[in-house]
Structure formats: structure tokens, C-alpha cells
């Protein structure tokens, strides 16, 4: 009689464990990844990586995780179940950010020190192309149809448009000072680029590569120099964007239709990047200086908890575990 109950309980426990999704956070100064359990909002695992891990992304089927180990000059490929580094990919020098092409095979990597974008085939582990871009490339994006890749260069203050078939630049557009992050939105019809020093986000019409809108930020009682937009993510249906504003310690909520800022949310110090949970009801922001991750309830736009992670958390990536 007791056995079926025990079996049911065990199955239920296994099931609940299987549903405990995770947020993976790279800790730039600790050379580790902190894994946060979304159910308990606690760090459940800390995994060693190469030196200075920054960009992080999972393969489309979540079977491997790619990590930019900037000071190891490598993109590391890790088994997320075991935390074991499977192999390194040839990434070029100082990889900071990357993006996985929709074909789930090609990684577009920004090499900050070399002013190039490296395209790596993750299956053959070879460099397919190296494209000259502006100085200190950082932000990377690929359009949903996979035809356009974007690199933003910090010092040149440009968004470079790459044709992914020819692996050549076909346009360069100026943005405000020190662009950090880029994203294609609304089925690839718009490109958003954040400028850290300029303190703006530039919205481009992708078809014409022309500027469509510019979003400014102003946080009460915070000096404008400290309002530095970096990473951003969109809610379901691209109705709103959550924008990390660096040392202003706030995240802005932007209406993606009107391009107006609706609200500012207080988070930890030097907020950098972020990712959502499965149904996009919770947002996890990495706060570099305070060494924590703030969890924001998306519906109420209120911070609910800050979770201590390693030193200088940088990137964040969601991992479903079912």
C-alpha cells in the first residue's frame, strides 16, 4: 500500500525538479556561472568557466551552452547538465558578445580587441569568416530570418549591417556614443541599438536602414551621465522593452509602440543584461557592482528580490529544464 504512494511522491518530486527552470548568470570577476532556480529564487549551482565569462547563450535545443570566456580568448561549449566544458571554439581574440544564427549552427562573435566579427561553424569548429567592423565591436544580433547580422562598435559608434550569405557589410549606420547591445524586434522589421554614453536607444527601420525613432531616458535624482542604457529585452508580443540603465541602478520600461518610457524600476548597482523566465512574467537583471541579480515581477513592474551571485555578474540566459 505504501509503495504506490512512495512511487507517486517520488514521481511528483522528480516532476517538480524537472520543472524548476533556471537562469544562468556569468560572473565576470569570479570566472564562474551562477545557476538560479526560478522556483526558489536561490543559487543552486556554481560552475567554473574560462577567464572573464561575459556573453552566454544556449543552443536552440538547450543541449549545450556557449560562453564567451573573454580573457581565455575562447568561446567555451559546456554541457549544461554536468557543467563540463566539452570543447572550445576558435573565437578570435577577446570575444565579448555573440549571437547564435537561427540555423543553430553559426555563431557571430564580436572580437573587441581586433575590430572584427568572427563567424564560427559550431559543428566543424572552424572559422567560416572574419569581417572587418568598427573599433571595439560589442553588440551582436541576427534577424529572425537569418539574413542580416548586426555588429555594433563601441568606439566607432556604428551599427554594421552584415549580409549573412556573402558575410560582407552592406551598410553602416551611425548611432549615439558607445553602442552596447542590439536586437531585431517585431518580426525583424525594427532594429533597436542601445548607446551607453549617448544615453539613448536608436530604433531603425530594417528595410531602409534608416533611423525611425530615438528613445531618451531621464531618472529622477540621478545625474544624466549615470543613465547608461545597455542590455534590453522585450515582453511577449513586443509591447514593452525593459532596458538596463547601467550605473543609474534602474531598469526602464519602454512602450515599444510609442517609444515612450513608462516607468523606472530600482535594481542593484550597474545593471547590465537580463533575461526572462519561461512565460516572461519575471525578469532577471544582472547587477555588476552589487554582485546580485534582481528579480522583477513583469505585471506589477516591482522588484521582488535580489539574489546574491558571484562578483560582477554580466550575462543572463534562461534554461528550461523539462
Amino acid at each position, binding site marked *: 500500500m505504501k509503495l504506490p504512494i512512495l512511487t507517486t511522491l517520488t514521481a511528483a518530486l522528480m516532476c517538480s525538479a524537472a520543472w524548476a527552470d533556471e537562469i544562468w548568470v556569468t560572473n565576470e570577476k569570479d570566472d564562474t556561472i551562477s545557476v538560479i532556480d526560478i522556483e526558489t529564487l536561490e543559487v543552486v549551482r556554481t560552475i567554473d568557466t574560462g577567464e572573464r565569462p561575459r556573453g552566454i547563450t544556449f543552443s536552440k535545443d538547450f543541449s549545450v551552452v556557449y560562453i564567451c570566456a573573454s580573457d581565455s580568448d575562447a568561446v567555451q561549449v559546456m554541457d549544461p547538465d554536468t557543467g563540463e566544458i566539452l570543447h572550445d571554439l576558435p573565437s578570435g581574440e577577446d570575444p565579448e558578445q555573440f549571437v547564435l544564427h537561427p540555423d543553430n549552427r553559426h555563431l557571430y562573435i564580436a572580437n573587441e580587441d581586433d575590430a572584427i566579427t568572427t563567424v564560427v561553424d559550431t559543428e566543424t569548429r572552424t572559422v567560416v569568416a572574419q569581417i572587418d567592423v568598427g573599433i571595439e565591436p560589442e553588440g551582436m544580433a541576427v534577424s529572425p530570418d537569418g539574413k542580416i547580422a548586426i555588429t555594433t562598435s563601441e568606439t566607432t559608434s556604428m551599427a554594421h549591417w552584415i549580409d549573412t550569405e556573402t558575410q560582407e557589410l552592406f551598410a553602416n549606420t551611425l548611432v549615439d556614443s558607445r553602442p552596447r547591445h542590439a536586437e531585431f524586434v517585431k518580426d525583424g522589421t525594427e532594429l533597436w541599438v542601445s548607446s551607453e554614453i549617448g544615453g539613448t536607444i536608436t530604433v531603425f527601420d530594417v528595410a531602409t536602414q534608416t533611423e525611425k525613432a530615438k528613445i531618451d531616458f531621464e531618472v529622477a535624482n540621478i545625474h544624466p551621465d549615470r543613465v547608461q542604457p545597455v542590455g534590453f529585452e522585450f515582453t511577449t508580443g513586443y509591447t514593452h522593452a525593459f532596458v538596463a540603465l547601467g550605473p543609474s541602478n534602474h531598469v526602464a520600461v519602454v512602450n515599444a509602440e510609442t517609444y515612450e518610457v513608462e516607468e523606472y524600476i530600482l535594481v542593484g548597482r550597474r545593471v547590465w543584461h537580463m533575461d526572462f523566465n519561461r512565460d516572461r512574467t519575471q525578469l532577471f537583471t544582472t547587477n555588476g557592482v552589487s554582485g546580485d541579480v534582481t*528579480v522583477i515581477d513583469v505585471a506589477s513592474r516591482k*522588484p521582488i528580490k535580489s539574489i546574491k551571485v558571484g562578483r560582477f555578474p554580466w550575462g543572463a540566459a534562461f534554461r528550461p529544464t523539462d
Partner: protein
Amino acid sequence: MSGTRHALVAMRAIVIREALRFVHQRERFIAALVRPLVWLLVFAAGFRAALGLSISPPYQTYITYETYIVPGLCGMILLFNGMQSSLSLVYDREMGSMRLLLTAPLSRAWLLFSKLLGSTIISILQVYTFLLVAWLFDITLPGWGYLAALPALLLAGLMLGALGLALSSFIKQLENFAGVMNFVIFPMFFLSSALYPLWKMAESSELLHDICAVNPFTHSVELIRFALYVEMNAMALVWTALATAVFMALAVWGYDPARGMMTRKG
């Protein structure tokens, strides 16, 4: 049984008298509300960026300075009202109504406690009005916190009221109340965790931190702070309860014509 009923009737009468006095002094209600609101909406806005950020219990994440000082301002309402109530006792004594009250055939401690309860209930009403205004300015707390804070506010109110009672037994004339303001209310308020967290005090001076840490007002504010976030701070509870008992005993002793200060005042 009839003795208990008699005691309860007396308590009801005293509480109603306090309520009536309060209703007849609407300016007092507005003044009591304006003071913390000025702190919240003017002072806190200026200090928002000046104070560093740090997470300390009961907060789970980063909070604005406005949010931080809300429990302290609840304490401020209770503190000022406790002292105002003591002022009214001095007035009562000068007018002779105090003598009339204390000649009632009931224990002096009971009469004083009834007086204390009456003024505390009025203070709590003011605190909730303040919390409502704060909520309208988007300074919100967890829903259940508003309810969980009630016992904490009651105990803190009783403690500060008891302090007022004890002090009033030592004050001879109304004019001396200014001294209470300078030597009791202000040091008690500023040397507490009402406006700055204790770790911030420790950064500037360990001595200041230690003084704040033994100030019973600090503990009553922390009791309210934790309760507003539906959490219990056992140490703050013990300190506040202990201080209430001590101040109440002092008040009863002070108002005892045989032993206390009343004899000297005649």
C-alpha cells in the same frame, strides 16, 4: 464580575474622552499628518540619491529612501502623539480634572493604562491615514503588512505613550514641555533607525551606532518595519515589550501620591 465591568466601563469612558478630545481638535490631526508627510515627500526626496543602497532585512531587494523611512515616520507619529498625550496630562493636572480621574475607585495603574490605550488608538488611526496617503503617492507595502503591523503599532504606541505618561509625572508645568521636545523627542527620533539604517550610522560613528542600538525607539521602529513586511523581529519585540513595562511602572510610580513625584508637586 461587577468590578471587572466597572473597570471596563471606566476604560470605555476614558477612551471615548480621548476620542472626543481628538475629534474636537481637527487641527491636531492635520498637524500630526503633515509632519510625517513633509518628511516623506520633501526630506526623503532630497536624500534619495545621497544614501547608498544596501539590502538589509526585512527587505528582499533594493528600496527607495521613501520606502525606507515609512516605518520610521509611523514611529514618529506614535512618538509625537505619545508626548502630546503627556502634555494633555500636564494640562489635565493644572485644570484639576486629573485629580478627579485619579480619585475614581479603581486601580491607578488601570486608569493610566486606559488613558494610554485611548491615546494609542487615536495614534494608530493617524498612522493608517498616513499609510493611505503614502500609498496614494505610490509608496506601497505588501498587502498583509498593513494588517500585520497593527499589533506592532499597538505595542509601540503603548511604549511611547507610557514614556509620555512617565515623563508627565515629572513635569510641573505646561511650559516645561519644550524641554521634553529638546531632550526627549528629538534625540530619541534622530538617534534611531527611523531615518538611517544602523549600518549607515556605524559607518560614521560606532558610538552613535551603539546609542541608536539601545534606544527603545529604534526597536519599536524595527518592530513596525518587520511587521509591515509580514516578518517578526523577536529582539525588537522583546526590547519594546520590556521598555513598555519599565515606562508603565515608572508612570504608575510617578503618579502614586504616596511615593511618586505627585507628593512633591502638591
